[in-house]
């Protein structure tokens, strides 16, 4: 296939040919092309369909503001919908498909919508589809949903990887056009740490698209020289293909570097894109300007594009939009396109200028008038011009360049509190209000439209923000021509003139919106969807505003502007996630016995970020219950061992350590003897239980506090709050030591016998009674900590050693316990045993329970102040008949008593109004041979023995239960004191 519209010149590498396909058809292009430029070179004008009316569309722009030429790029799992052909760098083997069509791009069956466009005006759907009521969801909405949307996701897992990172610099320069390059040179030469980012793959910005001369050489060559110098400076980082997407608080910028999007496939291990968080002391925004169109009837046909885009295709890519083109402009810049294309041998049908005193040309015809309509079903064939004298003239042309003036790219100035101000000369908004701190704006983004002023602005910006002494550097000579724009937004017509080409919002829609009272800018936007397409209204918002202003009899700045919000251009969700995908979503925490547990075939479960052994299946066990029941029974019969390293541990030292614990625990710790451990309940200041655990006193001035696994972090934070903010002069030092110690529970009647084989000290009942604790040594001299505490209700110890020895200790325990058939148990058996014993845990401490609910209200010491004490006394938390923790067992031993089920009276209604309580934790008790549960029941402690109905309509349970003590085994605690 020949590149029939390829013309001379341009910054492409004609020595290499790249093959690509669009809608299955093969084409060729060259390195340096975009998909759009290559398609245009091949004479392809039709590239997409619009959102609502499915109108045929071609490129409007040559940049990231493109609303029309959106394609599904690549295929399979890498399919990428809504990709702008205008910014897609061509690579060999590229495949793209057109989207949002039913049938082929040329014969889209959904184009029928265009025939009914008169019924599908702005907001029509709010007024209908309401009857019959059921039809919205059954009929209308499914049709609308199917028709809506643009491209499709593959719905396969994206095989590419994404990365994130952080950069720090003195000056971030956004945009590598003339202003940005000079700013970078000025700052870079001063030694400042500079980052120069540009969304394009070729640095230079607009000058790559122009024939301007800078300092005696072509603008594009000047840019190459400037980049080369910057590249030689070690303090300057040049980042092409990098879009700064947002200006966040305090000089933090988000930027996306497209590392692999221009490659057929990314290198192995290398990311497709990187999200950079750039921390910059100063920022120069040199993001340039975007040309805006003029609306006229049928201004959306393929071939109609911005005049500057037409120039870009010709000058940068060596592509003529067509053999015969026309221009429609309200300013001098539009004439440049005609001159440049004419110089490249393209036939200029005419330049149509709305201004009566139009600049003349010897090379082509210049008409004073307006384009009033166009023809051509799938691409432009004729433009109809109404001349100044009222006569109509038809121009034959395959492309029409439209220039309505330029809008500075102020977006990033508005991401915080900046509100742009109106500039009469440019008829455009320029940066204004409160810019993000540290930001200055230079070049066209600041409304400085000539190359000379851009160069000057860039140098000045760098000097100002870096506080550099001396005069501005010598700047190369460059053009300094004004644009001379006469504001002109749309041509009155009888048909439809598009403002937002992607969302199909026309001048008429804006007028209707005004007629129906949707007159604020935000109402207009929301009612018509103007500016809400993937281009975020970069080429359409101004037209809408201008028409609203005209209808309201106000000026444009009085009408206002809509908010510009990040991201500057749409950004892959994947890159915001970076590496945090799959198993890497969150870190994994492994206990010291993890490797050992793996060897034993443990089944692991996620507990927060921890992986804990859930149970240890043995050969022949086919159901988890078999393993868990065995582990429980073996522990209760002889001895079991469980890794409890995950419990939070906080080292509390200092002369005031005991006083400090008195403050954070509702029960007293002041009189706890050295060598003793005590159960403690922490309340939040609002009087609700926060966490529970134990604190062991290793020395007069040294405690070890344990927290639940889940609350380790918030409890530590809370303790630091109390220490630093409430008791700033207590002599107490805190440090979290959760991971410093490997800790194992050894439980069961033979626990002592087992441990006696390991420890170096006397742990007889007299020497080391229930709730004792001590620093000891084990195995002939390894330092360790021993606590005689029990979660299972058995004679039990928790033994801790420095983490690196954890694996060895576990193996030692297993070896020493072999004669007792020591059984490792996991979190399930742990849970079963604590339910059997009636210990509250996370399911009970759910953030709404009080000490009273837990049946330990008397623990809240009245003798001392503690966090939460005062508010725990509120009436609402101490009401008659309040919830109390109880045990629940089925009347029929075969019945389940599932967690989450609700308690109802044995007889009477079963509904929310008669709810009596609920089950918090449940299990099958192998010890008792039936299901058991803990729960909260209204006035529970007075209802032991009551028959009740336990219902879980969600899971189909409805059984008779009996309320019992929560202590299913050993209620008097004989075993644990044995």
């Amino acid at each position, binding site marked *: 296939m020949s590149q029939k519209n390829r013309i001379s010149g341009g910054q492409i590498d004609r020595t290499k040919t790249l093959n690509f396909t669009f809608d299955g058809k093969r084409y060729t292009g060259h390195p340096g092309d975009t998909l759009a430029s290559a398609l245009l070179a091949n004479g392809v004008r039709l590239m997409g369909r619009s959102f609502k009316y499915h109108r045929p569309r071609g490129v409007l722009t040559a940049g990231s503001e493109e609303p029309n030429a959106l394609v599904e790029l690549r295929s399979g799992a890498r399919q990428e919908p809504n990709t702008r052909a205008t910014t897609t760098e061509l690579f060999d083997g590229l495949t793209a498909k057109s989207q949002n069509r039913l049938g082929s791009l040329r014969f889209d069956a959904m184009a029928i919508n265009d025939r009914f466009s008169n019924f599908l005006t702005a907001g029509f759907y709010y007024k209908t589809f309401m009857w019959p009521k059921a039809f*919205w969801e059954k009929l209308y909405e499914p049709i609308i949903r*199917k028709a809506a949307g643009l491209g499709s996701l593959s719905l396969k897992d994206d095989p590419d990887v994404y990365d994130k990172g952080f950069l720090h610099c003195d000056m971030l320069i956004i945009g590598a056009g003339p202003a940005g390059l000079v700013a970078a040179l000025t700052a870079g030469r001063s030694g400042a740490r500079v980052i120069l980012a540009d969304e394009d793959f070729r640095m230079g910005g607009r000058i790559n698209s122009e024939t301007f001369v800078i300092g005696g050489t072509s603008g594009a060559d000047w840019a190459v020289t400037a980049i080369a110098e910057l590249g030689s400076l070690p303090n300057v980082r040049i980042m092409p293909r990098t879009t700064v997407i947002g200006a966040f*608080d305090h000089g933090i910028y988000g930027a996306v570097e497209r590392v692999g999007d221009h490659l057929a496939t990314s290198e192995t291990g290398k990311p497709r894109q990187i999200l950079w968080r750039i921390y910059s002391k100063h920022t120069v925004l040199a993001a340039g300007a975007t040309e805006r169109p003029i609306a006229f009837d049928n201004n959306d046909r393929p071939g109609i594009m911005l005049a500057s885009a037409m120039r870009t295709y010709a000058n940068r890519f060596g592509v003529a939009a067509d053999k015969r083109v026309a221009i429609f402009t309200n300013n001098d810049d539009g004439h440049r396109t005609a001159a440049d294309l004419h110089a490249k041998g393209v036939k200029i049908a005419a330049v149509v200028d709305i201004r009566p005193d139009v600049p003349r040309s010897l090379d082509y015809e210049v008409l004073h008038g307006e384009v009033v309509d166009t023809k051509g079903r799938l691409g432009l064939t004729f433009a109809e011009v109404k001349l100044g004298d009222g006569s109509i003239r038809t121009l034959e042309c395959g492309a029409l360049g439209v220039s309505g003036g330029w809008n500075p790219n102020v977006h990033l100035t508005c991401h915080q509190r900046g509100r742009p101000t109106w500039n009469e000369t440019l008829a455009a908004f320029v940066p204004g209000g409160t810019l993000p701190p540290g930001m200055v704006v230079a070049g066209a983004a600041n409304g400085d439209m000539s190359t000379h002023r851009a160069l000057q602005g860039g140098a000045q910006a760098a000097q100002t923000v870096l506080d550099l002494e001396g005069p501005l550097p010598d700047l190369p000579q460059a053009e300094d021509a004004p644009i001379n724009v006469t504001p002109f937004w749309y041509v009155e017509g009888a048909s439809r003139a598009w403002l937002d080409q992607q969302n199909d919002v026309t001048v008429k829609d804006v007028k209707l919106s005004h007629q129906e009272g949707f007159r*604020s800018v935000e109402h207009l936007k929301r009612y018509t969807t103007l500016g809400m397409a993937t281009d975020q209204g970069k080429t359409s918002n101004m037209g809408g505003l201008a028409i609203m202003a005209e209808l309201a009899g106000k000026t444009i700045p009085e009408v206002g502007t809509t908010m510009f919000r990040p991201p500057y251009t749409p950004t892959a*969700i994947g890159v*915001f996630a970076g590496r945090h995908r799959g198993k890497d979503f969150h870190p994994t925490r492994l206990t010291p016995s993890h490797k050992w547990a793996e060897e034993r075939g443990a089944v692991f479960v996620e507990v927060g970020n921890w992986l804990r052994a859930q149970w240890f299946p043995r050969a022949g066990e086919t159901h988890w219950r078999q393993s868990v029941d065995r582990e429980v029974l073996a522990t209760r019969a002889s001895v079991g061992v469980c890794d409890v390293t995950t419990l939070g541990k906080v080292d509390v030292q200092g002369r005031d350590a005991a006083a400090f614990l008195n403050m954070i625990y509702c029960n007293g710790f002041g009189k706890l003897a050295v060598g003793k451990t005590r159960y403690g309940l922490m309340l939040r200041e609002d009087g609700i239980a926060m966490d529970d655990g134990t604190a062991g006193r290793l020395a007069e001035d040294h405690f070890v506090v344990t927290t639940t696994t889940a609350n380790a972090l918030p409890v530590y934070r809370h303790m630091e709050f109390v220490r630093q903010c409430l008791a700033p002069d207590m002599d107490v030092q805190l440090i979290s030591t959760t991971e410093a110690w490997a800790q194992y529970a050894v439980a069961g009647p033979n626990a002592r016998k087992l441990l006696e084989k390991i420890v170096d000290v006397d742990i007889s009942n007299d020497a080391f009674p229930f709730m004792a604790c001590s620093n000891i040594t084990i195995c002939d001299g390894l330092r360790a900590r021993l606590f005689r505490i029990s979660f299972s209700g058995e004679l039990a110890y928790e033994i801790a050693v420095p983490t690196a020895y954890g694996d060895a200790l576990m193996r030692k325990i297993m070896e020493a316990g072999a004669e007792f058939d020591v059984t490792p148990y996991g979190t399930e058996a742990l849970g079963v045993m604590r339910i059997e014993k009636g210990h509250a845990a996370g399911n009970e401490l759910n953030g709404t329970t009080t000490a009273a609910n837990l049946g330990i209200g008397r623990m809240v010491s009245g003798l001392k102040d503690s966090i939460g004490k005062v508010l725990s006394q509120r009436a609402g938390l101490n009401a008659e008949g309040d919830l109390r923790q109880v045990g629940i067992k089925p009347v029929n031993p075969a019945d389940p008593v599932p967690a*989450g089920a609700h308690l109802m009276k044995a007889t009477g209604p*079963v509904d929310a109004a008669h*709810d009596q309580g609920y089950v918090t934790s449940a299990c099958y008790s192998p010890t008792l041979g039936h299901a058991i549960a803990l729960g909260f029941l209204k006035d529970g402690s007075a209802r032991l023995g009551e028959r009740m109905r336990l219902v879980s309509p969600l*899971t189909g349970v409805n059984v008779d239960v009996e309320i019992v003590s929560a202590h299913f085994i050993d209620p008097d605690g004989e075993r644990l004191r044995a």
Partner: protein
Amino acid sequence: MRYSGFQVIKQALTGHKGWTPAWRDPEPQSHYDIIIIGGGGHGLATAYYLAKEYGQKRIAVLEKGWIGGGNVGRNTTIIRSNYLLDGNEPFYEFSLKLWEGLEQDFNYNAMISQRGILNLIHSDAQRDAFIRRGNAMLLGGADAEMLTTAQIKARYPYLNTKDARFPIKGGLAQHRGGTVRHDAVVWGYARGADSRGVDIIQNCEVTGFRQESGRVVGVETSRGYIGAGKIGCAVAGSSSRLMSKVDMRLPMESHVLQAFVSEGLKPVMPGVVTFGAGHFYCSQSDKGGLVFGGDLDGYNSYAQRGNLPVVEDVCEGGMAIFPAFARARLLRMWGGVMDMSMDGSPIIDRTPIGGLYFNGGWCYGGFKATPASGFCFAHLLARDEPHPTATAYRFDRFETGHMIDEKGMGNQPNLH
């Protein structure tokens, strides 16, 4: 004018010349029986129900900007009634029932779409909690269903069950949950209220209250003094600011919540899904955009914008369950200012000042509550007693210890 398919056709054939403004743009009168401060969803709904259900006359809604400019136009459009606690569930179920008949009631297509909401489960403890909640919903007359992973997978085949860090162990579904076109709710209530005589006064900021012997008698506004028999405040994130004008400190903080939408995509999400092991929830709009959100930015803020860490956090959550969304592009992010209360539940109550009523503390659950909030606030304003479904939403519940704390986070507003 009544909206209908017939009307749409008629207007299309007559050049759309007959469409009239959806609501009037009246000058404020000198006195109203009832003034509602706040032209958001709740304020407009209150005015609508005051006029329609409670027969009140001479009502005005004062809005400092343009109606619907606050959270009702900034949320992720989800409706549901999957609440646990006694004080909440009946109210939210009442709200869902009102949604179910709303479009016909106010003659506006708000695209109420009960495509279902699904809360994913990732741990046994979470399943226990969700079973308790699902049962509370069923016992309270709402709908709920426990789904297995396989059932969920059938509906969302691209859900990550391959290498998820926190495996999906099922989900609690409420099939009557879904989404609504949020702006249409504003416009529907506004049009419905306006047609019943309510004055909707935009660009009218309340700058102070005038009181006489312990009772409010009117408001000072940017458009002059306006007298009132009763005044109801429904200003969400601006509640503390407004009530400070009568020296009230509120049990709430204002926090920014971000929301996100992707580019338009062909349908992939049938309903609403929430991730249970991270901060992410998502649905797909009728236009094709994936609408998603997550957690608060976490610090007090009156700025309607957030920062990058939460954007990343939300997208990480999204990727954790939907790795197939990686190449979808985030199109727009924005923020709303949430009136985060001290227990995560709202307040609809009288204030200590005569004639002054308050509605706020909606946290980030205000949108789904819009109809019931309006209805109950109207009830309170008209009858001077709480609506039966909103009796728990009292100011004094914190002092008496009757908090309604669904999440169990206590007096830490940014954790609700």
